């Protein structure tokens, strides 16, 4: 199985909404696709919406951190939005604090965060 999660584009921002429990291969595919798309679309930002996810284990957590790191290298910013309270508590207990990953409560606040960071950047 090699499911691929669709990547949407709004202006210079890529938006991914994860809607179901992911297989490891799908997670890896997403990481790869995002890296390709950031370059192909010269995206300034990436938003990963995980509000539908009931579980984030260290594998998915690592993907989020890696995508954030890759996008930084490619001069884009990644914001992870919509993490559920139970998921956040579990990740902290697991020992995964996702340092270096920007977060926002929901998609709207994530978009606002990205536009703030691009408009206040060096002019």
């Amino acid at each position, binding site marked *: 199985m090699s499911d691929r999660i669709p990547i949407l584009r709004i202006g210079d921002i890529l938006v991914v909404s994860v809607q179901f429990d992911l297989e490891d291969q799908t997670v890896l595919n997403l990481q790869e696709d995002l890296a390709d798309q950031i370059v192909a679309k010269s995206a300034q930002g990436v938003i990963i919406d995980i509000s539908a996810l009931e579980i984030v284990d260290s594998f998915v957590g690592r993907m989020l951190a890696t995508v954030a790191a890759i996008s930084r290298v490619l001069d884009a910013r990644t*914001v*992870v*939005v919509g*993490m*559920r*309270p139970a*998921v*956040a*508590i579990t*990740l*902290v*207990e697991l020992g995964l*604090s*996702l340092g270096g990953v920007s*977060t*926002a*409560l*929901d998609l709207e*606040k*994530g978009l606002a965060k990205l536009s703030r960071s691009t408009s206040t950047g060096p002019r």
Partner: protein
Amino acid sequence: MVKRDNAVDLVGLLSVEGQDLAASWVGEVTGSLGGRVGAAELNRELRELYEALVEALRKGATDVHSEHMSEVRAHLTELSRNRARQGFSPSETAVSVFALKRVLEPVLEKGTADEIRAYLRLARILDSLGLFTIETYTQTRDELITAQAEQLLELSTPVVRLWDGVIAVPLVGTLDSARTQVVMEKLLQALVDTGSEQAIIDITGVPAVDTQVAQHLLKTIVAARLMGAECTVSGISPQIAQTIVALGIEFDGIVTKASLADALKLALRRSGVDLVAHTGAQR
């Protein structure tokens, strides 16, 4: 055969012709409770119990936990639970049972040797029924205490909205691990429900923290960050500051403010609100 005779003796003791022993019993108990239970209610409770007891004895029951006593136990449980809820003491509850012994006491003076033996056997049964009452009473009180503790936990951890996008939890009293965990979950859920990006944890009213509680607070702050919100801790007392340093708890990367007011000012600034004082407003 012997068993049956016993039963008849015991029943005979409780159903003397021309005497309403149940009425004397009710009278005895009413005196001891000082009228805090309605006369009609008490009359009903004890008469039902009395009938159930006579019935159980007629079937030859001597053990409180036997099947024939189930009716008696049900009545006693109801009685004990009611007394526990109404705030009576354990003695006031058990006296309802023991009063029956006192009602039967005249037998000891005027009764035959057989009747006295029957009285002693019945007294033993009544003793164990009395103990059963106290056990049920204690159990009910325990349940009440547990329920109240849970209610208190709910009440003592309010999450309040201070401003659009700013929520706060004012913590008062001793924090233990269980309570801190409840606070943590309520705070994080409130962030989602209110769409707030700023949270203030005010511990002005907390006398002391231990390592575990401090760890829970730290985890809450990290979890809030994972969800996209920022936390500020305000009202850290000098004692708690000393504890934190003495225990070697890492408080790095956590924003602290002396007072709730300072924390609110910071939270507002972070959410893009400017506070401007009108000229002339200050005297």
